[in-house]
């Protein structure tokens, strides 16, 4: 009985952290769907988002909700700026741009991470009691108000994103651009604007995820983007890069596997499980991965 309770507890914990991985994975998958390029720096955008939130909270003028909105907006701008500075000139310079963009993305990632290290140091910053935390007990299983908030917000955002992509004109333009950029341009879609919108959405979701995780673990640190980035990327791969529902489901799956793995196999290896899943996924579904090129951005 006790073992069963523990298992249920771990499942809840995994579900909560996994829903955040889903939020970050969406940024990878949406950009890939449109540009056929994996934004290596996305994990660092998530980290920057958490720090922006932390700074806003530090001013004392913001409560958690307004800081969340503020960080989301500012990080969205950061995402648009990164695309404009580091990717757009390469994309517009001609064919075979994916490889060059990838190296540029690695540069952006190194830059952001070092910048964070210089500004905020290597130490872990506590976020403090920004959220009123209540623990509920249901049949011996604990679930806190923070966990409920994360789950609710993550699911809510994903529903909104799904509606946005499937029901709005901009969403339709995004899907068109993902299917065929050239044709979309010929149909009068401003591809550059769609790319900006995509980066903005990805960055906003990452910032919200970052701030939620920061509050959940009460920790924000410059290298958080790297581990979370790899896990979210794994989710994007497992879900099929370019597929939005795939990323949502796989993110939760990664969170569950990781939590169960660290509870029952080795807690020291916690951050290693995502890598093993990534390598296994790449080994056993290579055709699935390589077949997902342009034209798979359909929701």
């Amino acid at each position: 009985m006790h073992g069963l309770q523990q298992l249920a507890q771990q499942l809840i914990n995994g579900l909560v952290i996994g829903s955040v991985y889903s939020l970050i994975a969406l940024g990878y998958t949406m950009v890939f769907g449109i540009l056929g390029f994996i934004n290596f720096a996305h994990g660092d955008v998530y980290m920057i988002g958490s720090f922006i939130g932390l700074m806003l909270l530090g001013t004392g003028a913001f409560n958690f909700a307004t800081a969340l909105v503020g960080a989301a907006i500012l990080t969205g701008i950061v995402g648009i700026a990164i695309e404009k500075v580091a990717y757009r000139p390469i994309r517009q310079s001609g064919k075979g741009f994916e490889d060059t963009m990838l190296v540029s993305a690695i540069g952006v990632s190194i830059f952001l991470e070092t910048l964070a290290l210089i500004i905020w140091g290597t130490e872990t910053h506590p976020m403090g009691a920004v959220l009123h935390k209540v623990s509920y007990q249901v049949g011996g299983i604990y679930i806190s108000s923070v966990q409920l908030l994360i789950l609710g917000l993550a699911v809510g955002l994903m529903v909104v994103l799904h509606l946005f992509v499937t029901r709005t004109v901009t969403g339709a333009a995004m899907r068109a651009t993902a299917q065929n950029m050239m044709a979309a341009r010929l149909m009068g879609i401003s591809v550059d604007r769609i790319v900006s919108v995509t980066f903005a959405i990805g960055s906003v979701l990452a910032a919200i995820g970052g701030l939620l995780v920061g509050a959940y673990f009460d920790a924000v640190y410059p290298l958080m983007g790297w581990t979370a980035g790899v896990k979210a990327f794994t989710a994007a791969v497992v879900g099929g890069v370019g597929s939005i529902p795939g990323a949502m489901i796989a993110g939760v799956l990664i969170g569950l596997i990781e939590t169960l793995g660290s509870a029952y196999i080795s807690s020291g290896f916690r951050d290693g499980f995502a890598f093993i899943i990534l390598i296994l996924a790449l080994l056993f579904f290579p055709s699935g991965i390589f077949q997902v090129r342009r034209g798979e951005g359909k929701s």
Partner: protein
Amino acid sequence: MTARRLLSALAALAALLLVPVLITDDYGLHLIIMTAMFMMLAASQDLIYGYAGQLHLGQAAFAAIGAYITAVLMLRFNLSYWLVMPLSGLGTALVALLLSVPTLRLRGLYLGLATLGFSEIVRLTLIMWNDVTRGPMGLPGIPAPTFGSFVFESKASFYYMILAFTVLTVVAIQRIVHSRMGKALMAIRDDEIAARAMGVDSSHYKLTAFSTSAFFAGIAGSFYSVYISFISPDSFKMMDSFLIFAMPALGGMGTVAGPLIGALVLYVLPEITRVFAEYRMLWVGGLLVVTMVLQPKGILGGMRALAGRLRRPRPEPGTD
């Protein structure tokens, strides 16, 4: 022409040999030794990404493996460095072979992340394998190499050692690049499907490129082990993999001088300017973006383009 080239090569070699005579400052010499080691790592990295087009982000992990093989063999079994050093290279090459069999089918960032993941697994293994590696505490007191009665202790002696290693690495890689294998690797880089259609056994060549590159990286790590005489899981971090990756990318990928220029710019400049020392990776990241935006062929490519424009217009010398 060839006589002139030979002369300038000899002059360069003489200048390199004179370095410890001219620079007696310990810190200066240390900087040069570390730069040479990074040149070795950058040149070996370039074989995989610059020539074969395989995105590899784990060169520091190979160096760590070589360093640990050296440290463990010398501390536990008291073997001679001249036996341990090639063993470190071969051991690292073997690990690279084992890594590249499952990752052969991966391309682009998938391979990049698999190699990154591999280096993370190497790091975790080094931390958790307490019996052999002493975990995060690392392995201190790695003995100095000896040659007869000569003990490699002074900075100058280590300088000559790494100079020999680096020159041999660069020469060996150039020999490979100009051989049938080099042509095959570049064909794979430019279009793997076309290369295979032309009868190039891409799996074979990719495996060889990976393990050859790892061999040199392992020896560079082995050198680090005896030079610093202490090694820990933090000696070669993920950021070092990125640094090594950035060097050829910045200098000019798939060239002789590119990785060397890159190592010089990315390792020495931040150290000399001092102010920038802790900002090194900021430099690295920023320069990488600027280079990719302005001139994807790197500093060397930019200089070539400039020289070509200044002289008379002539055909591009090619990617090589």
